[in-house]
């Protein structure tokens, strides 16, 4: 024992390497542990207090119901997903273009901002009946609701990103005789990309909310409609299964946005990356 103590010159850091529960591994495992924990506590509470199924179904009942109704759930989930995706893409296109317009001109910014704030303050649920009057019950009101709720954060973020470009960076281009559009394209847009991608992560979850709200109020397809029908028939576990599927879709789309963000704007998060690399 004494000899190993003297000869052992491996630095203490090396020894921790094979550990499974190191910080990096933990970061990947912990989210799943948390989700599992929530379900376990939920299950335990429902069983311990013998809560009726139509008040709060246990996760086991929700999963069982979800499996039993897997076909209608998948069909409706696909409907909700497509509706959200279309509304979201529209929001990205309009939000990006409007953000550039608003951010690159103080005049446009000052004139449109109050109106935009006012518009965004309207609860989108209140708009759905009006949309139904215009377009009838179905997919289109849901797409428009998803779009309306998702485009605002995108617009604001892109506008802020472009409006706050450092004057020094603008001078670099202006001194070369660059046009306004060139300054926006070479400096404003790349500079606002971190803001843009941050807003996408918010917007995609908002878009799901918009779709489900519209489907609950006025649609004959989609997860929102499925949940409405399920709860009217006291199939509460099925309604919860619908909620669960929606969150899974939300997380999935969020991860897609986050992955694109990491690829596109690595230059903006270099601090965090460098730290991770330094540790790993």
């Amino acid at each position, binding site marked *: 024992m004494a000899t190993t103590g003297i000869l052992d010159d491996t630095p203490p850091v090396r020894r921790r390497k094979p550990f499974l529960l190191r910080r990096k591994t933990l970061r990947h495992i912990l989210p799943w542990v948390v989700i599992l924990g929530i379900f376990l506590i939920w299950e335990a509470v429902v069983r311990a207090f013998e809560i009726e199924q139509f008040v709060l179904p246990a996760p086991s009942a929700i999963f069982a119901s979800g499996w039993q109704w897997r076909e209608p759930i998948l069909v409706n989930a696909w409907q909700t997903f497509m509706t959200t995706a279309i509304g979201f893409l529209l929001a990205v296109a309009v939000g990006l273009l409007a953000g550039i317009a608003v951010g690159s001109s103080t005049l446009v910014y000052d004139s449109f901002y109050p109106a935009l704030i006012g518009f965004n303050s309207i609860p989108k649920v209140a708009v759905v009946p009006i949309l139904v009057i215009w377009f009838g019950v179905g997919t289109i009101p849901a797409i428009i609701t998803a779009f309306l709720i998702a485009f605002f954060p995108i617009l604001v973020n892109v506008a802020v990103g472009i409006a706050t470009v450092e004057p020094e960076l603008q*001078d*670099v281009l*202006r*001194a*070369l*005789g660059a046009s306004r559009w*060139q300054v926006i394209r*070479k400096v404003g847009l790349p500079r606002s990309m971190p803001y843009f991608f941050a807003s996408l992560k918010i917007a995609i979850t908002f878009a799901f909310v918009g779709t489900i709200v519209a489907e609950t109020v006025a649609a004959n397809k989609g997860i929102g409609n499925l949940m409405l029908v399920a709860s009217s028939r006291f199939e509460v576990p099925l309604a919860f299964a619908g909620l669960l599927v929606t969150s899974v879709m939300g997380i999935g789309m969020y991860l897609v946005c986050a992955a694109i963000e990491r690829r596109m704007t690595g*230059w903006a998060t270099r601090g965090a990356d460098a730290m991770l690399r330094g540790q790993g």
Partner: protein
Amino acid sequence: MHLVDLDRVSLRYGEDADGTLALQGTTLQVRDGEFVAVVGPSGCGKSTLMKVVTGLWPPTAGAVIVSGRAVTGPLSIAGMAFQNPTLLPWRTTLANVMLPLEIVQPHCSRLRREWAAYLAKARDLLALVGLKGFEGHFPWQLSGGMQQRASLCRALIHDPTLLMLDEPFASLDMFTREELWLVLQDLWLARKPTVILVTHDLREAVFLADRVLVMSARPGRIIAERAVASSRPRKLDITYEPYSVGLVHELREHISAARSGAT
């Protein structure tokens, strides 16, 4: 022939008469291919002078004539480098250096067809300032001195006839600064652009310039001028020789006189 000709130029920031008067009756001429340094107490309007000459700010009064034409807007024959390197963080060093080519004619329309030639040119320029091997690095992976070298390359890539340097070495430590003086001298000797260097470092002015202009406190105008006769290429040692030291002292007195005049 004079490349830059300023005739009694004044500039007032803001639209009313209360605005800060940054320049008043500034008159100066710079010959083609000349290296001129402008020194002065801080806040004397040196940077304003740069903006007026390059057309970023229109003068309130007076005439600005560059290369025979009155300046009405930003000049594409000018390259600029600032106190901060102002490299775009999302571009690699090479892409940053090539930025002016995407904007200034005639390079802008030729860039795609003659990509290889322009690429080689940018690489050569980077090698000249000692940045070989760093073409693919992002600005935040470079030290302050290296960023400033890249910034110099960006100012020179489109072969400007007028190079405007606004305290480009002010934020660097002394050793890096002296190293870059030599780099700048080499670049200037190789291409002979007209240079206007704004600085508050008198040694730097005397080492680099053919002629040093002293500006008064705000509102700025030129109050003294000294020619520097040392032969080229200059070595760093000359900044400690009596001739240079004497010049530095003389300029120093002008500036302290200008400062006490202001208070």
